[in-house]
């Protein structure tokens, strides 16, 4: 098994799952002939045909709603919303329909669907093509939310998302697509909701997910040179998130930073910080500090966006701030 770029790992997971299970179908805008805006689905329509890799018109609400109907009728649809920003047009299908049907119908049936989207800045795509909105979905009972950061996790988490009987939002970061690397053979399986210690350390726990992992690991390297040994936890799944893993790490390091690209205010970090302040209060030797996007729409200009994106220096400053 090989994949030279992050996007290829996702493509490989889709390819393998479609080959294994005829119920898996893809639907989305420009995913077939065009192979996807970021070439994530390239080649799949040629291999599986237009009935399994379905090019859809630009109609996000119907795409997501049809995925619900497909999932309720024995299929395992993987719908693509081209940019996470466009999911605003599909919120009814996801929030009112997909998330609630299993519960609302008293456990009758399930909605085994995946919605793939990509979020994040770094490409100067501007305010309507760069947002990290995963916190919205983590707030909705009935949805699962996944954000992979590595090749193996992209593959294994997508596999787990497709196998899961619930609606799963699988959120990729567009800045990761060109990242070079390789898949393990085979990639180790991962359960949804299972965090990973990306770097072991003694002095502070930094919780993160998605592309921000790489910024945090760089910061941890710089901190190590200064004698601060950070433990980095990659959540991988935001809903359900691995509270036990974070608490165990906090018990070890007694200091906590939560870092994500999403806007800091009311972001996923707020939930993690609040829970740890409650269940891990006695373990804390300093304030919990969050790192996230500033409370502004993602700006366009190269300079402004670079200034906006949470960076290594902010993570380092946050770690220092946990020391009081």
């Amino acid at each position: 098994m090989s994949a030279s770029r992050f996007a290829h790992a996702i493509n490989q997971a889709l390819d393998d799952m479609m080959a294994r299970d005829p119920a898996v179908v893809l639907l989305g805008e420009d995913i077939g002939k065009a192979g996807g805006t970021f070439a994530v689905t390239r080649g799949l329509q040629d291999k599986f045909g237009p009935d399994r890799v379905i090019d859809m018109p630009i109609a996000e609400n119907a795409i997501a709603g049809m995925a619900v109907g497909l999932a309720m009728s024995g299929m395992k649809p993987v719908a693509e919303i081209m940019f996470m920003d466009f999911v605003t047009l599909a919120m009814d299908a996801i929030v009112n329909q997909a998330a609630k049907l299993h519960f609302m119908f008293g456990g009758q049936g399930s909605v085994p669907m995946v919605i793939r989207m990509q979020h994040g800045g770094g490409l100067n795509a501007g305010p309507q093509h760069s947002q990290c909105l995963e916190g919205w979905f983590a707030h909705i009972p009935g949805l699962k939310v996944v954000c992979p950061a590595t090749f193996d996790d992209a593959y294994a988490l997508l596999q787990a998302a497709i196998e899961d009987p619930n609606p799963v939002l699988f959120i990729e970061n567009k800045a990761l697509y060109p990242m070079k690397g390789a898949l393990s053979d085979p990639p180790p399986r991962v359960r949804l909701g299972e965090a990973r210690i990306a770097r072991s350390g003694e002095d502070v726990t930094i919780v993160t997910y998605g592309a921000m992992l790489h910024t945090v690991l760089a910061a941890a390297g710089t901190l190590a040179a200064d004698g601060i040994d950070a433990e980095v936890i990659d959540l991988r799944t935001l809903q359900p998130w691995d509270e036990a893993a974070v608490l165990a790490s906090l018990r070890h390091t007694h200091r906590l930073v939560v870092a994500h690209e999403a806007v800091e205010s009311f972001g996923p970090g707020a939930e993690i910080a609040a829970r740890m302040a409650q269940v891990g209060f006695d373990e804390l030797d300093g304030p919990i500090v969050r790192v996230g996007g500033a409370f502004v729409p993602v700006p366009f200009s190269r300079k402004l966006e670079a200034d906006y994106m949470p960076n290594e220096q902010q993570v380092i400053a946050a770690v220092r701030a946990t020391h009081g």
Partner: protein
Amino acid sequence: MDIERPTGESGGERPREGHLNTPDAITPPPGDDARLRNQPALLDLYERMLTIREAERNCGALFAEGAIPGFIHLSDGQEATCVGMIAALRPDDTISSTHRGHGHALAKGLSLDSFFKELMGKEDGACKGRGGSMHVADLSVGMLGANGIVGGGIAIAVGSGLAHRLQGKDAVAVSFFGDGAMAEGVLHEAMNIAALKAIPVIFVCENNGWSEFSPTATQVSFTLEKLAAAYGIAYHRIDGHDVARVAELGAAIVADVRRTGRPAVAECLTTRIRGHYEGDSQHYRDHGEPLVDPIAIARDALIGMGVEAPALDALAGQVRDRVATAIEGARSSAEPSFESVLAGVYAVEAGR
């Protein structure tokens, strides 16, 4: 700029100021299936309509006494559309429904027991008391749920129809929606895709002339007939007060969609006898307007066929007893516990 004014019964201009459709305004479609004009077939449809009416009459009373909480939307006057259309369906055909979905659920096969228990919020209800009136569903009979969101079920039906096709089945999906949903964007997205991708789905508009509290004539600038034509979808207008007519045309439409795999639109002109929701004072409505009752029409037709009135009264008595028994069982049924609610947010395994 010249703007073409819409005409016809379905949209911008209705045959009369206001709301109600009259049977004589309906275009007679071709073909006449005599089998459904016979007495046993009509009697069966009549009994199904009567069951829905009697169940909903009791819903109103139970709501008034507080035994049914929340909001309920009754379909008095619309029984012929759901009974007639669903009579044409097989158990493996799927439907999605609306906030006014009691009739669809009962006609597709939801039991009266499960229905009343659900509306009263009991653990043994169709949805274990988690959904209530606006979310009654029975996946075992292909009823994919009433829906609290106007237009919320439309794309679900299109997806279900696509699933039937991808699985190589000749089942069809039906999306019931009201004329108020004609203004929702998802209908337009769904019709475009159904036509584009040749999906076996029937868009059944139950046009009662009202978009909640507003005449639909004030809400849409087009007719469904012209909309269907724009998308290249076959359109049928049906007198939704005549259950035999709905059943025979419904059977023809379903057979056609099943055979061709292509979508169709069926606009059933019908009447909302009661308010948008129970408790609606309908201050916005002309109380002098005639209300066409499909059950009275069917009863007259049966008597015209020679059925004795006492026999129909006896049938009504049987229906009343069945409904009363279901209500009695629902009243004494157990309340759900919150512990079990927390365990039911996520599915543990796939299944339907």
